[in-house]
């Protein structure tokens, strides 16, 4: 070290310190505005804490037991999962079909892709407004059409299942095209050789789709399900604005479509009970993390199993598969990627 000139020493410091300086803003800001609030939520959940009066007595896990005994909390969880299932499953099916159609050798690719993605640019608030009118109980377009065909109108806002269906439709409308494009990317990365050799062997398009395309895009499908889960469990704008005039917009007169985040909001800002609201936030956080972990382990198994199999069978497509994993980043491959 003693032989270094001051200039060289400075340069060495530059090399050593610079990387940390470059990543520091992210970590510092994230710790302050992302991590700290989440941890502090737990602190708030241990106190009686009023919106206006502020911090009160320490109550331990009292807020958690109160929430867990609250039937409205369970109601909100039921609604959240019901809406989530009504959106995730049809959405995935529709997205796979749309992706397959886009993957065909069609004319005007960009036009059709944009057509599919169009609903994504309509904000959730605008989507809620449009669909709450489409699904109006008295004068909505859907009920008008049903009556034109001699069917009974549906109480889209008053009935539990009907309201879940309407809200799931909003989510589906906005996200199906988006997910179709993710699946399309996965489909296009399927090695062409596989399709060619299968075609030579006489496999038709449908057969090739079922036996080649679907297995190849399975990791991406699971990835789509995971992101849909994380988003789906935090639905707020749609139920909030589905019927804002009734009961202050807390999710219907009987809370028939009150989701958990909507309940969190009601608890915090209507009932002004920050302590219990924080407990709800923390419980929902745990649920999301647990489901995320289950998904993650599932994905890893399937993703690694799949690529191992295809590598053994078709060594010459290996490079293509690696590209797939890099372009369509599935959580299962993220960890592998970092270890590189």
């Amino acid at each position, binding site marked *: 070290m003693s032989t270094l000139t001051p200039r060289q020493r400075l340069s060495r410091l530059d090399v050593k310190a610079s990387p940390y300086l470059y990543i520091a803003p992210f970590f510092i800001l994230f710790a302050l505005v992302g991590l700290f609030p*989440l941890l502090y939520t737990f602190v708030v959940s241990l106190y009686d804490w009023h919106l206006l009066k502020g911090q009160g007595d320490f109550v331990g896990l009292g807020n958690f037991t109160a929430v867990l005994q609250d039937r409205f909390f369970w109601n909100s969880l039921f609604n959240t999962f019901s809406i989530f299932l009504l959106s995730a499953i049809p959405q995935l099916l529709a997205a796979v079909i749309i992706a397959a159609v886009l993957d065909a050798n069609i004319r005007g690719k960009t036009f059709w892709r944009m057509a599919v993605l169009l609903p994504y640019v309509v904000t959730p608030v605008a989507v809620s407004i449009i669909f709450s009118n489409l699904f109006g109980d008295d004068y909505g377009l859907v009920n008008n059409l049903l009556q034109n065909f001699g069917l009974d109108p549906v109480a889209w806002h008053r009935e539990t299942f009907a309201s879940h269906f309407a809200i799931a439709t909003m989510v589906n409308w906005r996200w199906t095209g988006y997910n179709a494009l993710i699946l399309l990317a996965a489909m296009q990365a399927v090695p062409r050789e596989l399709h060619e050799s299968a075609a030579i062997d006489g496999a038709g398009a449908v057969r090739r789709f079922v036996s080649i395309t679907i297995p190849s895009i399975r990791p991406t499908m699971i990835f789509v399900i995971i992101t849909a889960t994380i988003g789906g469990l935090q639905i707020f704008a749609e139920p909030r604005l589905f019927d804002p005039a009734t009961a202050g917009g807390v999710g219907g007169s009987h809370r028939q479509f009150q989701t958990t985040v909507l309940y969190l909001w009601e608890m915090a800002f209507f009932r002004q009970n920050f302590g219990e609201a924080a407990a709800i936030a923390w419980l929902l956080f745990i649920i999301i993390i647990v489901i995320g972990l289950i998904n993650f382990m599932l994905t890893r198994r399937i993703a690694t199993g799949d690529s191992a199999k295809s590598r053994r069978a078709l060594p010459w497509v290996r490079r293509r598969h690696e590209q797939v994993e890099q372009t369509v980043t599935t959580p299962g491959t993220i960890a592998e990627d970092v270890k590189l």
Partner: protein
Amino acid sequence: MSIRTAPERTTDAAAATPPAGAGPRDTGAPQAPRRRRGGGVGINRRPGWFVYAILLVVLLGSAYPFWWSFVIGSRNNQALGSAWPPLIPGGNFWSNAAKVFDAIPFWQALANSLIVSSVITVSVVSFATLAGYAFAKLRFKGRNGLMVAVIATMAIPTQLGIIPLFILMRQWGWTGELGAVIVPTLVTAFGVFFMRQYLVDVIPDELIEAARVDGANMIRTFFHVGLPAARPAMAILGLFTFMTAWTDYLWPMLVLPNNPTLQVALGQLQSGYYVDFSIVLTGAILSTLPLLILFLIAGKQLISGIMQGAVKG
């Protein structure tokens, strides 16, 4: 997708080997031999009419709710009641738009949304590019561990931290200030991850070494090698960040009730006591226009961003 017949299979087998340039005669496919679907015949044919039929149904499903809102928004409340929905716009759009401007501070909200989304975008993209570059191309102790930390934080629903954030913002007297919406989203873990994934492949290590040998210090190397290479990914990340910030509703609604962003103002329009639906729908259309314009300009980048795995930034 079409059903294949036996005679074609023979052409298939024959066409599987010929060199590039021998475009299939019977398909009407363009002569694009090197393109992905340009090599063989069977998996390459122009699809049948029903593929376009499905696409047409999807197009109608995508566009119709939007068109319907515009038609109702250009008429009046009675149009909602008609048994068959009207298909042609009426003449009331501008008068309804004027009523929207009366009911909510539309221009103020538009300006707020633009400011908030722009500042967040610049901040997220800058910090993500810097950190992503370091993770992708610089060697330092603890790099892998810290990158795993970034990935782990991607799964954390930070939206659930609203209660302490609200307490903080009120203590600082920030409720009603745009800063209250900007500060919590100055960085995203996804942004760092996205930039890292992009830069790791796109910059050759030799280029960085060459710049260093030429005497450039670290930050100079970043500006002259890293930044130019990162530009396409920065554009995509920026697009997604902007859209995410623009569509955000829950948090702005809590801290900006009297100085709203566009989404908050629109929510207030929907929550009013005397609701005229044609006016509310006009508001929905008006508030969507900025993103629609963005979509028409940058739709291609948006599509390629999604297809590269840019996920719900």
